[in-house]
């Protein structure tokens, strides 16, 4: 057996095309014909692009790299949902067997003021890097580290920190958020570092600096809609946002009282 359930399907794509950040975008329609249900969503776009190139047209630009769901490059909003409708899945791991023959698929870039479109479906997410740069680290110069087992970490804390650390920085949380907020991204980093003993010395400064940076960069404010967490390909929990709210209040009192 193996792959005998494979079929070929035809789709109609409505794809957002935009030449540059300051240009008007619009939807264009394309036929994706004879797509194997074993292909990934990005491979389906590859097939369409190969045809466009041969016709001398400009292929659809989209970010992608590892295609294993870990680098966080791929983005896109597919039929209204970041990374498509399947939960816990990045676009590159979304496969065409989840689509029906003859279906119309609407593909848009991640939309947020902080994520300007570079071209078509490709957006600039460097604002997330700027947030990390503002405080998303533990300040330890190379060579300064004590023995790795010198500071035991309770397994519960280590596991929780790990869950938060699995964030791939794709920005789906921002894209899903009706407010274009990056609270889940920031919350995950604050939790990852704040739950570990190594992260304690900078705990207060970190949450204040990262949140202030987030605001400064034009991300919106959280209204607890929860869309971020359900859209996250790595299932980062909404808990991280609540925890950060707590941490922020505490840090504000400590620092500013």
């Amino acid at each position, binding site marked *: 057996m*193996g792959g005998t359930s494979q079929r070929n399907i035809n789709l109609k794509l409505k794809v957002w095309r935009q030449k540059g950040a300051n240009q008007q975008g619009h939807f264009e329609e394309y036929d994706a014909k004879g797509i194997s249900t074993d*292909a990934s969503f990005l*491979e389906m776009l590859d097939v369409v692009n190969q045809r466009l190139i041969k016709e001398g047209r400009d292929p659809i630009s989209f970010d992608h790299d*590892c295609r294993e769901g870990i680098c966080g*490059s791929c983005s896109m909003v597919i039929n209204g949902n970041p990374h498509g409708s399947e939960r816990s899945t990045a676009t590159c791991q979304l496969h065409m067997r989840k689509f029906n023959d003859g279906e119309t698929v609407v593909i848009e870039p991640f939309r947020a003021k902080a994520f300007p479109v570079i071209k078509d479906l490709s957006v600039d997410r460097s604002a997330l890097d700027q947030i990390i*740069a503002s405080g998303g680290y533990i300040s330890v110069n190379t060579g300064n580290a004590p023995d790795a*087992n010198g500071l035991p970490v309770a397994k519960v804390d280590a596991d929780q920190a790990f869950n938060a650390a699995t964030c791939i920085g794709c920005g789906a949380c921002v894209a899903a958020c009706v407010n274009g907020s990056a609270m889940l991204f920031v919350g995950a980093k604050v939790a990852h570092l704040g739950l570990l003993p190594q992260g304690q010395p900078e705990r207060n400064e970190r949450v204040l600096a990262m949140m202030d940076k987030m605001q400064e960069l034009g991300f919106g404010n959280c209204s607890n809609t929860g869309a971020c967490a359900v859209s996250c390909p790595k299932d980062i929990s909404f808990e991280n946002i609540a925890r950060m709210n707590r941490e922020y209040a505490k840090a504000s009192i400590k620092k500013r009282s």
Partner: protein
Amino acid sequence: MAILDGKVPPGPVAEKWTNHKFNMKLVNPANKRKFTLIVVGTGLAGASASATLAELGYNVKTFCIHESPRRAHSIAAQGGINAAKNYQNDGDSVHRLFYDTVKGGDFRARESNVHRLAEISPNIIDQCVAQGVPFAREYGGTLTNRSFGGAQVSRTFYARGQTGQQLLIGAYQAMMRQVHAGAVQLYTRREMLELVVVDGAARGIVVRNLSTGEVESHAADAVILATGGYGNVFYLSTNAKQSNATAVWRAHKKGAYFGNPCFTQIHPTCIPVSGDYQSKLTLMSESLRNDGRVWVPKNKDDKRSPEQIPDAERDYYLERVYPSFGNLAPRDVSSRQAKFRVDEGRGVGPSGQAVYLDFRDAIKRLGESVVSERYGNLFEMYEKITGENPYQLPMRIYPAVHYTMGGLWVDYNLMSNLPGLHVLGEANFSDHGANRLGASALMQGLADGYFVIPYTIGHYLASTALPKVTTDHDAFKAARADVDARTQRFMAIKGSRTVDDIHRELGQIMWEYVGMSRQETGLKTALEKIPKLREEFWQNIRVSGDATGTINEELEKAGRVADFLDLGELMARDALHRNESCGGHFREEYQTPDNEAQRDDEKFCYVAGWEWKGEGKPQELHKEPLTFENVKLATRSYK
């Protein structure tokens, strides 16, 4: 031919690095800020080097092709990172890690480098933990380890199946801290297209801004390449789509020697190709072979569903050929055996390019819940990609390219033969010989970046006269002109084939003739086919869109594939010249009666360093002889 000098320091192997650190010249703290260093690449090696050099006080300019430095392909490493911590009290030591790595590399690595790597390995774990890398822990709060292939001790630190991601995020955060401090200037979405050599030394690079198409020049006192491996020469590999060899290849064309290009590692358990639209391959952790049994049908063209094939008609070939190791035979051996079965016409699945990895007996023996506990996440990933449930049907797997041991030749200081050009991580050839052990790639990348280059580059800067060079220098103008000319040439071809089309064809040639097992006739065929394909490429590709103003991925790919075509040819030439089998390089003519790799230590105990001699001319071979004073040359046996 010249003899290459690895500049290995004198003294006993265990003291070389310590002595060398003392003997190297230092740059005084106030002078460090007068030096500008370029780092290309932000994977483990590049990010850790950028962070550390900036902490030391150098001005660092860091470049990456991604929109964020956190997306470098180190992120995809699953298994773990080795370190000689001996936390398990099971007899590990620096010497044992050194020994295992030299032996695992089939005696084609430099002893001194490997020993240094083993010495540094414990510091890496300390550093990463201090940065907040959430390694797996015991309930008591201490770090835990697991075992990996090629070792009899438990020395692999891991973070679930995402060790690479967690280590990279650690290095990335350390680097972003320096970006914030202004010590690292970060240039994202920049692709290095030329190395600039002034008076024989590497003094800068020319890059293209991938978002705007603008070409920029950057001058520095030294250049560090940490741009990863070249597995994508095969088109299909476990490498990320953007992983490419352009930076190292352009450096090679400026005079840097390419070391052991034919040493590639093929991983035995990947999800097989499902169709001609396939864009890349996905690895399934090797750990699956602990409980899965590998088989193919005994009869050719057996089209039955696997569960309908009775045991009597199954060939559990690894258990048959290697009764003592069975399904846990080493990577290279398992990969080759799978290829033999497929070549016999007994491959399975729609393409016939796969074998079964069956958990039926494990589920019977252990129960579904135990199997799910051990491999649940891998089973889910498999199901996501293939749509098949491995609890019910055996997995289909096939070997795939995933790492290249070869790379730019470097000396003990990680500097290539071109003064000032330093090469780190997978991009250099240095530490793994002809075969890399599992969980050693992450170790090497971070060792190079955190703990080697910060010392050795200081020595270079302190002991070299470096007159001021700006981007107005003629060498920069010439390099820019080369970039522009190449771009114009790509845009002007306006042929009928896409770049991917040619790349795919190159990949087929490489896989067929320069893949898992090689032979003289096949390599000669490759050496005929590749130049023809290159000609086709330069006459018939089509790059649509504009060269400037916005993203043009086709143009990016064209440049990379042009380099892969050259590199593929060199790989074939290197494989042809190396008349022996060692590690990942298996020449069918050189095998023991029981199909094991047969080295020829008399003739080939050296590193091949290839020198570029100009377009259309074959590279010249130089040799760095390898001596083994601490690990006795012996046949690598896993019987």
